[in-house]
């Protein structure tokens, strides 16, 4: 009976995967009707398809791809994806090959998310077993976090839009997920590769180093040792073999070595491809420099463009430092609090609201990763409110943009209001998610130690 149930579930999982792929393939055939690649929500200066093909053309004309502040991505992407931007098949939509690559990237990401989710589930059950809590959950309905997360990632309209908008975010997301997958399944070279590539492409995944270190040092789900000691103190016996492993530095050194190797490799490749065009310095200036100094103030779904359009010139540097330091300030306390759940920390790290050029691709990534914790977050508050908020904001953004740009009856404040609502939603999501997670941990502890505690935050 159990087997049958499982079979049905996996069957419907593959059904949904195939349906979402077919849906993407159908949408490929209407690129002009939807015009997604020109939407500010989908393509930022970093991920825009138009800029990619522009950079490719500049390079073909043996000019620096960074000339004219058009392209701000990696030179490796130019070599890999550039040829696809011009390749055309007769009688087919223009960017068929490129869109197919995006679709494949999405599917691969989903599969990696699924595998990681299964890893996480095993680790979670391992923890419960070591606390003798397995019988507690036997009666309850446990969702497979891998399947849920993969389906959320694949069927999320944001993912589909980012994929159909021909942005490069599916590929960036894939690098991030590759890193997390490698770290969860302890494939250190793979994790290092994913981390280096993700950082190389969009800089912000660099902060993934903290969760990755915890993942490698502790394993995907390591409850605090104190809890064990507490539990066994009460029982009077202390079984050393059941204790979770200490923080081990070996894999981390291993990771650092591989990360160094990969980054040298990537930099050498970049250096070769940019030899005539100013070399690596030029690349750093127009990719990382462009990201950090928020040069492009064209509207996107973040809040920085408006802020820096309004702020006085001489405060500019100060606020740049404030905003970027803010990310680190947020991540450090969370790292201390959530160090035993590195993957959750990774989710929090990924949804950086303070990104300088966010796009819907980012929210696609973090909502996918959120699916890993479907069981832990089952008591999350505001779920309907958040859902309705996302549903409401996503059509509001193009409407406000239309009012501002095409009708002329609105102004920049209209669009900015939408992006503020979006930012607030993300904040509520993170705050509620973290507090639900902490509540879950408290409940676990109260179950283990047998002391009923107030489980409210």
């Amino acid at each position: 009976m159990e087997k049958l149930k499982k079979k049905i579930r996996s069957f419907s999982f593959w059904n949904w995967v195939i349906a979402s792929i077919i849906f993407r393939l159908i949408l490929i055939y209407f690129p002009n009707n939807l015009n997604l690649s020109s939407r500010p929500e989908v393509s930022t200066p970093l991920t825009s398809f138009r800029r990619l093909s522009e950079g490719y053309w500049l390079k073909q004309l043996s000019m620096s791809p960074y000339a004219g502040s058009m392209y701000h991505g990696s030179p490796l992407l130019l070599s890999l994806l550039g040829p696809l931007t011009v390749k055309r098949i007769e009688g087919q939509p223009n960017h068929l090959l490129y869109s197919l690559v995006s679709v494949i990237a999405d599917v691969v990401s989903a599969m990696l998310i699924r595998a990681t989710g299964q890893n996480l589930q095993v680790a979670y059950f391992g923890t419960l077993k070591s606390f003798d809590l397995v019988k507690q959950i036997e009666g309850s309905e446990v969702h497979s976090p891998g399947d849920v997360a993969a389906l959320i990632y694949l069927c999320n309209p944001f993912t589909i839009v980012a994929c159909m908008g021909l942005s490069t975010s599916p590929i960036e997301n894939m690098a991030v997920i590759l890193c997390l997958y490698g770290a969860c399944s302890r494939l250190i070279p793979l994790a290092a590769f994913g981390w280096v590539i993700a950082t190389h492409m969009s800089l912000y995944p660099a902060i993934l180093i903290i969760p990755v270190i915890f993942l490698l040092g502790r394993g995907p789900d390591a409850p605090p040792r104190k809890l064990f000691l507490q539990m066994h103190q009460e029982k009077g016996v202390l079984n050393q073999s059941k204790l979770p492993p200490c923080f081990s530095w070996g894999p981390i050194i291993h990771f650092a070595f591989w990360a160094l190797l990969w980054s040298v490799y990537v930099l050498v490749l970049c250096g070769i491809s940019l030899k005539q065009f100013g070399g690596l310095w030029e690349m750093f200036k127009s990719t990382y420099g462009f990201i950090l100094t928020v040069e492009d103030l064209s509207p996107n779904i973040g809040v920085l463009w408006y802020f820096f359009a309004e702020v006085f010139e001489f405060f500019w540097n100060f606020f740049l430092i404030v905003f970027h330091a803010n990310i680190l300030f947020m991540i450090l306390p969370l790292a201390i609090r959530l160090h035993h759940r590195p993957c959750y920390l990774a989710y929090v790290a990924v949804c950086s609201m303070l990104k300088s050029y966010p796009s819907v691709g980012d929210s696609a990534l973090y909502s996918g990763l959120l699916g890993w914790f479907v069981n832990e977050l089952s008591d999350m508050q505001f779920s309907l409110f958040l859902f309705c908020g996302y549903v409401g904001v996503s059509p509001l953004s193009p409407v406000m943009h239309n009012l501002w740009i095409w009708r002329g009856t609105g102004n920049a404040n209209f669009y900015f209001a939408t992006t503020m609502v979006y930012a607030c939603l993300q904040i509520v999501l993170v705050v509620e998610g973290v507090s639900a997670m902490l509540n879950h941990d408290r409940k676990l502890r109260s179950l283990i130690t047998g002391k009923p505690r107030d489980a409210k935050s």
Partner: protein
Amino acid sequence: MAETKEKSHSDEKPKPRVRPIVRLGIFLVSHSFLVSVVCFTSGVLALFLLPVLAKNTYISENALMPGSASPMLSNHHVSDGNRLVKDLTNSNLKSSETGIESHKIIAKYMLDVGAEVSFHKFHPQMNQFHPLHFFSSPDSGKIQENCSCSSYGINTVGIIRAPRGDGKEAIVLVTPYNALTSSFGEVLSLGIAYSVFSLLTQVTWLAKDIIWLVVDSQFGEYAAVSAWLREYQTPKFSSHSTLNAEMCPDINYLFEIKVHSMAGSKFSNSFRRAGTMTAALVLKVRDQSEQFDDTVSIYAEASNGQMPNLDLINVVNYLAVHRQGLRVNVEKLWSLLNSGWLKSLGEIFESLATIAKSLNPKFKFGIPATEYVEGIATLASSLYYQALGVPTGPHGAFRDYQVDAITLEISPKFSLDKVWCSDILLRGGRLIEGVIRSVNNLLEKFHQSFFLYLLTSPSKFVSVGVYMIAFALLIAPLPMVAASLYVDANSSKGDSSFLFAITDTDEHGITIRSWRWLNSAKSVFIVHLWGAIVSLLPYFICQIPDCSPTTSFMIWVLLSILSLLILNLVLASPLACVKASQEKEWALVKSVTISSVFIGLGLMSVINFATAEIGALLMVPMCLLARPLKLDVRVGTLRSCCRIICNLVLGHIAFPPAAFFLFKGMLDGFGSANVGDFWMWVESLWAWNSATYLFIGMVQLPCWVLCVSILFHSC
């Protein structure tokens, strides 16, 4: 507001301290019935108060300075205009088989005063169904392949280059003219435009180019204007335009004749442009009138309820009333003028105002009852035309390119004979001259005054800040009721969540409490998906050749029902095994429905306020009152009986076709109602890319279906 629902059920255990805002939220949610009744009635009341709250219009942009210069249009220019009128009426008698002759005369006149002249040849473009048009830019890349030489129109364009300008800006004057069946009114409008035009070639103050566009209205005025604008705004770099000319030798021949006959002049065969358009005026003269005065009617509504900047209307209104002594008129719903209950409502407001005034003489907000009724009639028509989303004249084409434009229709007091003709030419010409002169003063494009407003009379308006209050009050109950329903549905079950259910309550089949709404969200989503399919169906149905409106409508209804059944079978059935434990499932469905309606109405209020307002009046009570009939029947009290009756009535009224026929019946009488009318109405909506169509298909219809399914829910 929606946050409160969660807060309140985290409040089950006694807690020492709750934040005031949370307490307020809990209070509102727990009294949601009372709050929603109060909010809804005050929303409706606020709507009826709008004429009282309307402010007088004022010229917001200082640079306009209307009427500060004395008009320069003299009898000399009027006689010029008269000459053109005479020539055109004569040519009409001479050769009426082609309109080319009269276009030639107009071009000749334009050349005589020293303007640049060109012809714009266009093929009327059929309005097509672009369901996504609203979200994309006004696209114009579509090039028609199959243009036959037999159907084409010719716009005559005259351009005066401004002596003091840099050629970067222009003002457009449009006169529709059908050369084949030209009425005297059309010819007279040409005469007015020409007298102004001949004046403007001589003046020295002109800083913006003047474009006089004589549109060929044999395929409709709007189509011709939009064709010209498309050509003007998006130059084609392909060879299609020249190709067309080569394909049709006879047209080419006519063009050749012209070039020869006008050799040495400023005639050009290519498309001529001036700068960006600041404003556009469409001028019409009505043939016969029932008015007691010479009146100017202003039509301003463009597609999707967009309005031109209020300053433009103000300038016209000011000049017409205070300088030319014309009466200014905006559209009214005439049937409302005689309604007794509005009059008594107006009297109540008036008496309230007098009481208030007697208490404190500083309170001066009352208006006379007759004025109130007129205000309501104007407001209703303003709402109606904005909600329809169909432009009320050729000025609508300009608004798609962010150009402020209005249509002025002059209706003379007497039938048009020679004497009155000159009078109309003089006064109409001076009005146009004044408007052009004050727009000419503009330094920037219109931006000072309002774009979002409703008119209650030509000189009174309700701005967005005021009318939004009425709307906000109308939809404020929605999130509160959704929250309270959600809390009810959730708190009816014990605390059951993953991992801890067994310790708390030993219960099997645990559902994740916080995510229980997902199931209802899915059914709501399916219905909305169905709504999207229904709104796409006409695209396929209208491909069927030789289909009368009635049969098309029938096919549409059948296909819609079929698709609903199929969707239910495919998507809903595997998971539709609703557990018996979810006895409150309808409450969750209602809660999610209300949330979706709230989102839909909120979105629509940004896109097209009037549609959202009318939609809210219909949908909000239906959503709020929906409750399974079985439950009410079981209770059998007076209150539940009232609710049953209300539910049944609203369930009938809010169905979109029913609402349409009801509305039509109120306006035109029920005798002429026909099933096919609804199809024709819908067709006109999507032909004009009205967002109202999408609203009806994707918000109102699904909401109605969901509410009806809640009514017949078996619980």
